[in-house]
């Protein structure tokens, strides 16, 4: 079952690559890429950048980057691995920029929005998701990426290793650190009462 699904996905990936690398079929390839991956990439990005607006922005940047560099894609990695790598990098770069802006705001003495966010969360229906997002945002970049790819995307360590270019052993250690920290954060936030 899994094998035939994998084979089907591999065939679609081949088709996407073929179309994207042919000048006259570029638009067809792009449409197929969107059909196949836009939703998956969106949720991966959304798990990292919290809001829909941010996720939309990062996803569009990701897709533009994919199109710009598709000619240089040699097919050594699987297409989805390459796409996830670009998406993860884009999301983490976005978060870094955002963090810089927030630090500047905090230095300016404006911390009201943090309390506002907590108050807003307690009113939010989907509290678990939002609290998880808060917890994830406290993790270092590598742990953030590993946590999201493993916890939400359910990828194997080998697949994550292909995406992030880190050894499987290192990834296991990162994931374990990440889940301990997230659990601690959620416990302190009263999520498990």
């Amino acid at each position: 079952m899994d094998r035939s699904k994998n084979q089907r996905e591999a065939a679609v990936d081949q088709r996407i690559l073929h179309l994207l690398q042919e000048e006259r079929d570029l638009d067809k390839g792009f449409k197929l890429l969107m059909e196949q991956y836009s939703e998956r990439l969106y949720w991966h990005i959304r798990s990292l950048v919290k809001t829909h607006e941010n996720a939309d922005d990062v996803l569009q940047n990701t897709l533009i980057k994919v199109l710009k560099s598709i000619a240089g894609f040699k097919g050594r990695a699987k297409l989805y691995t390459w796409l996830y790598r670009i998406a993860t990098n884009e999301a983490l770069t976005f978060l870094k920029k955002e963090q810089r802006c927030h630090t500047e705001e905090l230095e300016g003495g404006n911390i009201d929005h943090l309390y506002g966010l907590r108050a807003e969360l307690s009113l939010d229906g989907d509290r678990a998701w939002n609290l998880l997002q808060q917890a994830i945002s406290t993790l270092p970049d590598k742990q953030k990426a590993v946590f999201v790819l493993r916890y939400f995307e359910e990828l194997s360590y080998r697949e994550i290793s292909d995406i992030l270019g880190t050894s499987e052993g290192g990834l296991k250690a990162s994931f374990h650190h990440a889940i301990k920290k997230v659990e601690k954060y959620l416990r302190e936030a009263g999520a498990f009462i």
Partner: protein
Amino acid sequence: MKNEELHKELKEHAPNLAQLREKISRPVVPDSYFLNLEEDMLRRLSEKGGLLTPKSSVKVRLYPLLGRVAAAVVVAGVATWLYFSWTAEEKSKASLANLDVEAYIFQHLDEFDEDLLLEYTSDLPFEEAAFHSESETSWETVSDEELNEYLEDVIDEIDETTLENLL
């Protein structure tokens, strides 16, 4: 399979997170977002200079390639021309070995201007200038008859003092 493995891992190291995972529901995405995304992207791409326009894309991909090919052809052409012109010059120089030059000069001695010959021989050491083609025009090879014949030819042109010296 993957899910089971992950669930086991979470249950072992972070049981609360394993439970939470089952409760999580994804937030709502605006209606038709994924349907509109394609259109938004196409619009944005056309604003960005037409990434999906084959013409520009061909330019982007082919121009650097054509440039490199043209540069390589020019460099190869210049290098080939330089190589052949250099070797031809060297070959012609190399083929004109001293002995060949000298042999030519002696064969066509009458055609050369006297000053030019003096200039040529002045560059050589004295003995060589005087007898540099000894092997080919050695005095020993000139018979008495030939010498007498030559002297008879030029006797009128030789002044008396020179004649006395020669004798």
